[in-house]
């Protein structure tokens, strides 16, 4: 399963920059990111080239961060595909905590990152596969 780096960031100038600075230092490439905004704080969520190493580097700096299992799903960039994926999850009563998507060039390949509630206790992976989608692991994600 793919790993997403979650970092607790307070809502004030320069806090995000402090993170990207540290990631740059260890040569981590940020493939995609999203921010879950909660008012006076937020969670920065990153797909990076080397999640374990990035996690250790940030933790070493005292950052409040964690690696979370997420589903990275290849979703073809054409009408109706996201709806199809979400319908499959909804039919199986699988709850999505947070999600973001991005498109990779040059093939317009859509990737959907899903954070699933209690992921290890659900059959989310097989539901997604049975609906005809490909689940990417870390390696595939970086080598796209």
């Amino acid at each position, binding site marked *: 399963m793919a790993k997403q780096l*979650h970092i*607790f*960031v*307070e809502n004030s100038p320069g*806090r995000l920059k402090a993170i990207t600075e540290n990631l740059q230092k260890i040569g981590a490439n940020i493939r995609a990111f999203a921010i*879950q905004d*909660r008012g*006076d*704080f937020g*969670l920065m969520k990153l797909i990076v080239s080397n999640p374990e190493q990035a996690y250790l580097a940030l*933790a070493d700096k*005292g*950052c*409040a*961060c*964690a*690696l*979370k299992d997420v589903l990275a799903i290849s979703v073809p960039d054409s009408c109706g595909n996201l709806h199809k994926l979400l319908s499959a999850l909804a039919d199986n009563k699988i709850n999505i*905590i*947070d999600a973001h998507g991005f498109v990779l060039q040059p093939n317009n390949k859509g990737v959907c990152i899903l954070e699933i509630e209690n992921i290890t206790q659900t059959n989310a992976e097989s539901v997604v596969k049975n609906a005809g989608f490909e689940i990417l692991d870390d390696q595939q994600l970086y080598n796209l």
Partner: protein
Amino acid sequence: MEIHYWNKEIETADRKTIQAVQLQRLKAMVASALHTPFYKRKLPTVGINSPDDIKSLDDLKKIPLASKEDLRQNYPKGFLAVDTSEVVRIHTSSGTTGIPTVIYLSAADLDAATDIMARSIVATGATRGDVLQNMMSYGLFTGGLCMHYGAERVGLMVIPAAGGNTKRQIQLMKDFGTTVLHITPSYLLHIHSTLGEFGTSVKDLSLKKAFIGAEPHSENTRKKIEELYGIDAYNSYGLSEMNGPGVAFECVYKNDLHLWEDAYILEVIDPKTGDPVPDGQEGEVVLTNLIRHAMPLMRYRTRDRAFVHTDPCPCGRTHRRISRILGRTDDMLIINGVNIFPSQIEEVIMKIPEVGTNYQIYVEKQGSLDKLIVKVELYSKMFLGEAKQIDKLKAKISDELRASITIKPVIELHEPGVLPVFEGKAVRVVDKREKL
């Protein structure tokens, strides 16, 4: 101006008479004190083994000063002079580090305290026919119940409204024609700013007086209250260790607070040396309770700063007056009338594993009310990567603090390492309110 007295004889007694009452009552108090574990240990070390060792009021100085720390260390029964079957009421307050302090009152003590409270109320001109809306907290805090008892004794109609729920407070004022409020000045100002919101104006109310207290406030605050409401506001002073409100109260002349010297011996000391300071000079108020025998407490350091007036008051009362409270000699914070020690906050947050060891306490004004902000850092190793965890953590800190200090603070959760780190003495408390 018409002057009313509750007990004219003692309120206007000459100095000699007051001192004679004090001496006689002090001897009786020493007799009671010698039944308590605390004073059984302390008094013999200064040569006091019986009430007869108190020969004049000067002998008061032999009695050791007592502090909040003494009350805490001797919790719960170290100051108790009687069997608990003699006790009809207790009040407790949270201590500086989670250990509370307690006071005990016998039926006779409660009667005496109620009488002093009644005297204070009457001194302001309030009387039978007045309607008192008592907006201080009831329960373990003395502010609500002690005022309630005194007002009932005078014959006022009492509305035991307690604090909070502004909409209902205003409704009660309108429905029952409230004429007198017992309230913190900050809450009274806050209510004024909300009247419009509830479709009410001052002219819909029947207010005449307010007893304001439980928090230090300036003369400007009093004037503002009086102008906004068109009422007279009387400063009041008390503390649970001395039976609650009514230790000292302003009379109709509103030129500082008569301290009832037949019930309390007043001293003002230099907080650093413990030596007495002359009248007129600011120092720490030290009080000896002469009317509570279930729990004697003598020469108690209040930590409140004030000075004494000796010039006569036109009301004819001879009891010396103390100035408004000018501040504290310790780090206690008074937030919307609630007493809070920074150590209580520290104690709570340090028990929560998800927060780091660095913290800061901010106090500021939000409109008329005080706002307490507790800034803590998330402890990095406890972070699970979920926003829900942070929300729960903030709620948990807020709930646990509320359970300890009774008011709900605003919790600011910061990244690890963001709050200032101090070399030497840490500045944990930032009070941005106007200084008196």
